[in-house]
């Protein structure tokens, strides 16, 4: 990246101000990668992503882009799949450690904080590179429905609705227009599908998107293709 004198390590600052790989990430998650989005409704949260596979020969049921971290917290990503899997593993362990100590399920804010702290460590330790993913964490706890975005730098934000990945600016404009404070969860799911459809190259179907939902029952669920199909039909 230019100054050869300082590019021996990803985690060393140049005099100008920003370390090598993080220049791209510090200001705005230029994580490209498949679009994903999340919407917080009055009675729940929905997260969704497009699931474009490299070939029609790939078995799409084996790919799971949306995962649960605890029974009441789910997560979706944009960026590098393998990095995502590592973070999911770490976050799940942290959630369990919290439970072991307090016999209480971890609040969403605490899990987000700890995951973000892990991601930050990798921007400041030697011999490692930052995680190439942005996460959207959705959960429902005593403080109600919550949606957080976590970036490779380790910064996190709470959102009412957000998008990440390649189509982010269009998707966010679309969401800004459509979002209302007292939206019901089913409306939010429809809006999420419409937003994905906006930027989708090709034909959207129940097998090439993934949707995760958490309602007031506090159980995070990934929708099955047939459930997605029902919502798709309602939208069209």
């Amino acid at each position, binding site marked *: 990246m230019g100054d050869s004198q300082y590019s021996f390590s990803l985690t060393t600052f140049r005099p100008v101000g920003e370390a090598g790989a993080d220049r791209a990430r510090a200001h705005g998650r230029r994580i490209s990668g498949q679009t994903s989005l999340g919407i917080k409704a009055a009675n729940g949260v929905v997260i969704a992503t497009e699931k474009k596979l490299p070939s029609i020969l790939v078995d799409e049921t084996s790919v799971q882009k949306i995962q649960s971290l605890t029974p009441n917290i789910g997560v979706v990503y944009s960026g590098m799949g393998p990095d995502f899997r590592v973070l999911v593993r770490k976050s799940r362990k942290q959630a369990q450690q919290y439970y*072991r*100590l*307090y*016999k*209480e399920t971890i609040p969403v*804010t*605490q899990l987000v*904080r700890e995951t973000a702290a892990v991601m930050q460590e990798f921007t400041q330790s030697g011999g490692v590179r930052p995680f190439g993913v942005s996460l959207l964490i959705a959960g429902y706890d005593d403080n109600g429905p919550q949606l957080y975005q976590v970036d490779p730098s380790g910064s996190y934000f709470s959102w009412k609705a957000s998008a990440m990945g390649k189509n982010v600016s269009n998707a966010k404009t679309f969401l800004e227009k459509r979002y209302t404070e007292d939206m019901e969860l089913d409306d939010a799911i429809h809006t999420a599908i419409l937003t994905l459809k906006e930027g989708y190259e090709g034909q959207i179907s129940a097998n090439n998107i993934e949707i995760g939902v958490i309602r007031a029952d506090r159980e995070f669920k990934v929708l099955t293709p047939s459930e997605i199909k029902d919502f798709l039909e309602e939208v069209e």
Partner: protein
Amino acid sequence: PQIFEYNGSAVVAMVGKNCFAIASDRRLGVQLQTVATDFQRVFKIHGKLYIGLSGLATDAQTLYQRLAFKHKLYQLREERDMKPETFASLVSALLYEKRFGPYFCQPIIAGLGEKDQPFICTMDCIGAKELAKDFVVSGTASESLYGACESMYKPDMEPEELFETISQALLSSVDRDCLSGWGGYVLIV
């Protein structure tokens, strides 16, 4: 020398109507010699959560310091007070960490939980929790305390009556135990 009887102690907690009482004796001894008559064994964690620690006095103090530390960090991180049940799990985990070199204390935890429901529990020195609906006891006078509480306790007592009951139970039990006594300290919430 018996390690749990080295300093002498008596701690008891009782449940009343939307309130709880926790009480302890005031004696600090070194085996048969009394060294202090104003020793504090019941500590505040937050406005609605108290912990009484019987057993070895040095462990009681250190354990309290560690717990206060953990609770303050929890308050800062989670922006709320710990619920009594959560705190009890924390104490249990902390004690079990030292399973093979334990703190020689028997904690009694008393607090008001959600909607001000009283919560009491006790555990042994390695963290085995014991919840109770009526009263919990610990210390060198525990056997007398069990008897006194069992006969004097009634459910759903108002704070004033609870105070009388727990004080009488404490005083009569420590009178039968040479290692605890020299007055009592009673706290009602």
